[in-house]
Every structure is written in structure tokens, then in C-alpha cells.
């Protein structure tokens, strides 16, 4: 096995290990780990807010609430 392969593999190890650590550092320092409650709601928007279910069988008309929150319950963890 030639030296180039070793260098390539070592460089890969350092690069990918390094970027993972850097990503963790970035996440911690840029506030990604703060305000988690708000973060968990980042996938909802005004059109599909918390409390709105978004999937049913194509031929089904839901006969009762898909979701209890549709009765107005709010979620807090």
C-alpha cells in the first residue's frame, strides 16, 4: 500500500473528525441548543400550525378529529 493512500486516509480522518467537532462547536456557540421549545416548532408555519394534522387516506373523510389538539388544546412540554 503506497504512502499516498495513507496520507489520503489520514487527511480524511482529520477532515471529517474536525468538521464534526466544528459543527458541534458551532451549534453550541450559535445558540442552536438554546430555546429548544421554539426549535421543535420550527417545522410548523402559519398555514400548517401546531394542532393541524396534515395527512389522511385519499378516500377518507375523518369521522372524528385526527388530532385532539384540534379541539384547542395547546402543547407545552
Amino acid at each position, binding site marked *: *500500500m*503506497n504512502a499516498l*493512500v495513507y496520507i*489520503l*486516509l489520514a487527511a*480524511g480522518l482529520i477532515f*471529517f473528525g474536525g*468538521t*464534526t467537532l466544528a*459543527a*458541534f462547536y458551532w*451549534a453550541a456557540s450559535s445558540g*442552536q*441548543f438554546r*430555546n*429548544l*421549545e*421554539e*426549535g*421543535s*416548532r*420550527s*417545522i*410548523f*408555519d*402559519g*398555514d*400548517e*400550525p*401546531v*394542532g*393541524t*394534522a*396534515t*395527512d*389522511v*387516506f*385519499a*378516500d*377518507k*373523510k*375523518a*369521522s*372524528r*378529529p*385526527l*388530532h*385532539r*389538539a*384540534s379541539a384547542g388544546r395547546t*402543547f407545552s*412540554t
Partner: protein
Amino acid sequence: MSMTFDHPVTTPELDKAERALIDESTRIPVLLFYGSAVFWLLIGTLFALLASFKMNAPHFLDQWGWLTFGRVRPAHLNAVAYGWASPAGIGTALWLMARLCRVPLRNSGLLICAAIFWNIGILLGIFGILSGDGRSIEWLEFPNYASFMLFVAFGLIAVWAVIMFRFRRPGHVYVSQWYLLAAFLWFPWLYSTANILLNFEPIQGGAQGAVNWWYGHNALGLWFTPIGLAAAYYLIPKVLGRPIHSYYLSILGFWSLALFYSWNGMHHLIGGPFPAWLVSASVVASMMMFIPVITTAINHHMTVRGNFHALKWSPTLRFTVFGAMCYTLSSVQGIFMAIPSLNKVTHFTHYTVGHAHLGLYAFFTMIMFGSMYYILPRVVGWEWPSARLIRWHFWLSAIGIGVMVIALTIGGLLQGLALLDPGVTFMASLDYAKPWLLLRSGSGILLTGAHIVFAVSFTLLVLKTGKRREGPTLFGTDQGEQPEALIP
């Protein structure tokens, strides 16, 4: 009440239009990857059936070298792992990336090139394996000319992911996105390193086994698992309209997976000619996997809790929750299988095959089906043609995989105990598994049925056949009502 951080003024109508735009932008790449995934799923299923039947009737179709067990079995593994599961995962991941970056998909040329390279790679690889050109390295059987194509495709997708992330709209990075970035960036590295060390500039001796299982296990844990979990962490809350139970735990789960998983592979080598510390460290890391597994299990269960009746209404949720439950099951099973005293019984038996199907099928594939049921109508702008087909698909695949895992588990345990018994000859130990292998072939027929039903459903949707449906899951329709509005 919009939750996007940077849009102080936004209306539901704007949000809806924006989401439709993002979904639409992913259409061509997602359809390319999904389409090839479904095609290779059918091919892979065919090889699976052949390989399974050969267990019941060893001389079945063995007059042609091309169709002998030693080639059909790796052809099955590679067709479903790289032909079906990976493109299905990539298609899902592309759509998730666009939604989570909150910008339309850009540089789709990179992805289209990747899809082309990908399919050429799979075609060459399967052809290579069948013609006797395959490598006897599990998970890396593809000959060099095929794995190189896959590497190019992986590379293009990784570059695209970095560009996408770079130009995302600022705001919170949702947990699914962490999983996706990890998969996109780590996997090309794993794949290239393993291929270099095993195929291009092969290292010698036992170290090959170590590299083999470092790769083989990481392919499951750092490629398929993150994509499956990313989809579950997005779809379950989104379908239910309920944020994840404990977001803190989900973040902890991701970083502990990142920390522990890559150590796990050596537990495949328990009892082999390897330094004891290497295997022991891996067994300990396997135990540590309880942390990401339990956090994920708690989160998914607690998010759905109280809304299990929704499984009746939502195809996406039904498949995804089934998959999420099987993630817990297969992970816990895997952790126990790493304990040397249990490994002694299960290693080199059909039990391991059952575990592999529990992980890649009952967990990953079911979540991919669930994702497709959610994503495709939004991307194509057309509803699934028939709820009946979806129900058939679900029950055939759920019962099929259930029977398969149970059969292989029992058969494998009996086989393993017989193997350890000095009073039982090797040939006699195989007899214990025989009836269970017959049952496994039966379950394979159920799964084949499920895949055909799904392929029909998929084709009808993509071709936009039938009457246009107006349903709540339709993408971009003005009449699209929310499910609550349908309640009488």
C-alpha cells in the same frame, strides 16, 4: 402564529404558497430517485425470492452459473441496499433538506447527474455480480467499476447538500437536518475509505475483516439510520400537528449516535482473530447505543401517545410509526446481539438475517414507504389513486415482514443452539432451520405482493391517472381543506 424566526410578517397564505414552491422545486430529482428506487426494489425482490427458494430447494435454477446462490444472494443485498433503500432515502432526504432549509431546491443539475451515475453504477454492479465479477466482501460486493460510479454520485450529492445548507434561510437547524447532514457528509467518506482499503489498494489479512465490518455496520448506522430517523422526526410531528415530545432528547440522541455508532462494527467479529481490546471497545460502544435508541423511542412514542387512532387515518403515520417502533426493536435486539454470550448462539445463523431484515425492512423501508406517501402527492401535485391499494400495501408488507422476522429468529435460534451442541452434526443443525426457511419463503411472497401493489400505486400517481382528487393531502390546491374542516 408563525414560528419562522426571520419573518416577522407572514400570513398562512404566504406560508402555503412558499411551501408549495419548495415542494415543487424538488420534483425532478425526487421523482428520479424515487422512480429508480421502486424499479430496483422490484428487481431486488426477485433476487430475494430466488435466493430464498434456493434455501428450500438447493438445486433450483442452479444449471446457470449466473443464477447460483453465491451470486443471487449478493445481487439481492446490493439491489435492495444500494438500488432501493439508498435512492429512496436520498429522495426523501432531498425533499426534507429543501423544506428544512426553507428555500427551493437549487443546483438540481448536480442531483440529476448523481441519479444517472447512481443507476449506471447499480446496473453495472448487479451485472458484475451475476457475471461472477463480484467481491466476496459483504456489503461491498460491487466490482470497482460499479463502486466508483456510486462514489461519484455520493460525492455530487454531498456537494449539493453543503451548497443547500450554505444558502438556507437562517433560523433553527431542526434535528432532522442534523441527521441528514451527517448521512450526506459521512457516508461518502465511509464508502470511499472502505473501497480504497479493500478493493483499490487492499490491506492484508485480518485487518480486511475489521475494515469490512467498520464499513458494513456504519452503512446501517450512519447512512440508513440517520435518514430514517430524520424522516420520522419530521413526519410524525408534521402529520399529527404536534411538536416532538422532548426536543432536548432528540438532540441528545443525535449527538450520542454520532459519538458511539462508528465504534460498533467490531461486534461482528466477536470470537474472531482480532485484538481483544478492539472487540471489547466495540461491545461497550454497542451498549452505549442504548442512549440514542431510548431517547428516540421515548420521543416517538410520547409524540404519538394519545393519538394512536390517527394511525387509522394517515397512511404516512401508519407506515412511519410502524417503522419507528421497529427501529427500537431492532436496535435493542442488535445491542443484545453484541453481548458475547448471546452472540455465541446467534452468530452465523439465520437469526442475524432476521435482525438485518428487521432493521432495513421493518424500520427503514417502512419509513421510506411512509415518506413516499407523504412526499409524492405534494411533489407531483396528484393524490394517491386508491386508498385500498395503500391498505393492501401496508398489510402485506407488515404481515410479511413480521412473519419473516419471527421465522428467521426462531429458526436461527434453533440452528444456533444445535451448532453449539457437540452431539449434533453440522448437517443436522441445518435441519432445525428448514421448516422456518420455508415459512420465510412464504413471507417473501407476501412482501413481493406488497411491492407490486406499491409499484402499481406509484406508477398510477406519477402518471396522474384517474380523476383529480380534491383532498387535504393535495399539494398546492386552493380547495385543499384541513382535515379538521372535514369533520361533520
